[in-house]
């Protein structure tokens, strides 16, 4: 798949995020928009044996959204990849919906692990990677973390274990958008320096621009080629990316756009689409 196609998919995913959150009148657009390219690359290029017709294939690569509040990006990516009709994105957070406020593996095919309570998803990803090693299977496991989420101690328990066990089939992607609900991560409780922390836990560390598909491609390739240690991809991103008034604004961490804001957001994304089609 070429870069332009990926960019179009990412933009469609962003539309799905905005539509879902707007319809729900609640949800987390900021950290969903920041990771649209990452999920696009994972679901359209990187992950193997991803098949909407066979979502439980035991040999599939796994994706665990440890920052579970970014459920809108996971749902929009799954819909874009054909797991369910895009119209269902409008049921987000509503009673009876399979699209729970945080991802539920027992509700929605394609969700590999229920997440939402920060810090817990990575441990489950480590368990899956360990299972692959124990069974001599080739599937790989990817987990997306928030940069605020890594304030949770359990993340480092999981990293210590993954490094100790040399789980080179595990890729941690850190959505480094620099903001959490209460403000800038540097002001709230700084997790910096990031590279050194993962290096100290025996990870291979790669830095990328989270919105650059060429950089993501190179990083995931390097991760696959790295043996004997897990990889952490520190992806510098823009929270709210693609929607003018949401970019780099912590206020849009967990707030839905009103009707007027929704129109502006969809117009912003339509302009991006138009620029991609030129």
């Amino acid at each position, binding site marked *: 798949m070429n870069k332009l196609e990926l960019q179009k998919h990412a933009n469609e995913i962003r539309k799905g995020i905005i539509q879902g959150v707007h319809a729900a009148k609640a949800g987390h657009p900021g950290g969903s928009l920041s990771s649209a390219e990452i999920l696009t690359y994972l679901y359209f290029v990187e992950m193997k044996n991803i098949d909407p017709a066979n979502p439980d294939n035991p040999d599939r690569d796994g994706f665990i959204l440890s920052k579970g509040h970014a459920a809108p990006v996971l749902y929009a990516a799954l819909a874009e990849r054909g797991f369910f009709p895009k119209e269902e994105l409008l049921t987000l957070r509503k009673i009876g919906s399979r699209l729970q406020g945080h991802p539920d593996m027992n509700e929605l095919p394609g969700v590999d692990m229920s997440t939402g309570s920060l810090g817990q998803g990575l441990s489950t990803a*480590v*368990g*899956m990677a*360990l*299972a*692959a090693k*124990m069974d001599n299977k080739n599937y790989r496991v990817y987990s997306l973390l928030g940069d605020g989420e890594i304030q949770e101690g359990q993340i480092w*328990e999981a990293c210590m*274990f993954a490094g100790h066990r040399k789980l080179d089939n595990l890729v941690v992607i850190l959505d480094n958008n620099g903001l959490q609900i209460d403000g800038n991560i540097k002001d709230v409780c700084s997790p910096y320096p990031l590279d050194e922390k993962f290096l100290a836990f025996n990870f291979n560390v790669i830095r990328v621009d989270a919105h650059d598909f060429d950089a993501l491609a190179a990083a995931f390739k390097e991760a696959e080629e790295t043996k004997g240690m897990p990889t952490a991809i520190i992806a510098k991103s823009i929270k709210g990316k693609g929607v003018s008034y949401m970019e780099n604004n912590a206020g849009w961490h967990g707030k839905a756009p009103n009707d007027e804001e929704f129109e502006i957001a969809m117009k912003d994304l339509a302009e991006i689409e138009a620029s991609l089609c030129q």
Partner: protein
Amino acid sequence: MSVKVNLNSDKKVATRESYGNALVEVGREHENLVVLDADLAGATKTEIFKKAFPERHIDCGIAEGNMMGIAAGLASCGKVPFASSFAMFATGRAFEQVRNSIAHTKLNVKVAATHAGISVGEDGATHQCCEDLSLMRTIPNMVVINPCDDVEAKAAVQAAYEYDGPVYLRFGRLAIPVINDPETYKFEIGKGVVMREGKDLTIFATGLEVYESLVAAEKLAEDGIDAEVINIHTLKPIDEELVAASLAKTGCAVTVEEHSIIGGLYSAVCEVAAKKQPTKILAIGVEDVFGHSGPAKDLLKEFGLDSEGIYNKIKEFLK
């Protein structure tokens, strides 16, 4: 009909030992059984399994929350993990991981905790978990089992393996008498066991208090009080039918547990009674206090949880 019970056996086994041995037996038959521990393999007795199947024993280090998450991930890939630590850390420290990563997901993880209750002994209050049954009972999808001796503990491990879904298993540190008959004993999740039939009052007991209650019942018999003793090994789902039927028969009841009287067996039995058979029920257990250091036997006596303490409290209750 009551089951065959031997109160005069010389054989004493800690249920943590039964757990370690049962893991080997069940694990030999089933390759997908894996065991996780958090640097307590010697104490939880998972080291017995580790010796037999080192490649299937995963020591996570002192990180119980992460261990529960790893167990969930392994279960999602078809393994049947038994995740072990002391009750304090498995259900207290890692409560939310058990709730969100294991129970909400309905993953096939068995949380098997040892060193429950005050019979931990010398380690004292920080390690004497008297809240685990309460904590685990409140979590949806969780089955809660507290076996009373070696025979039952081994059977419970087998049953937990065969059950598809999250299970909490409670084991103890103290060696306790083996009272069940290994030849005839049958374990069924959710079924209470009549250990002694009686008509004057019902003693509902769980864990090591089953033996103590049976001994107390013998003393009561000498006073002409005919006590029924029911072993509630599964606190959730509790055997509502049996509890209600016995309450209807005796019209008077006591619960005995080495656990807080808040949220454990007393609460579970009272919930059934309030719904189906309102009865005055005496709670014998740890009365909303922390434990402290001392030999296990002495602590059980001090807290009134040995047969003599149970006998005295029941006599007072019946006055």
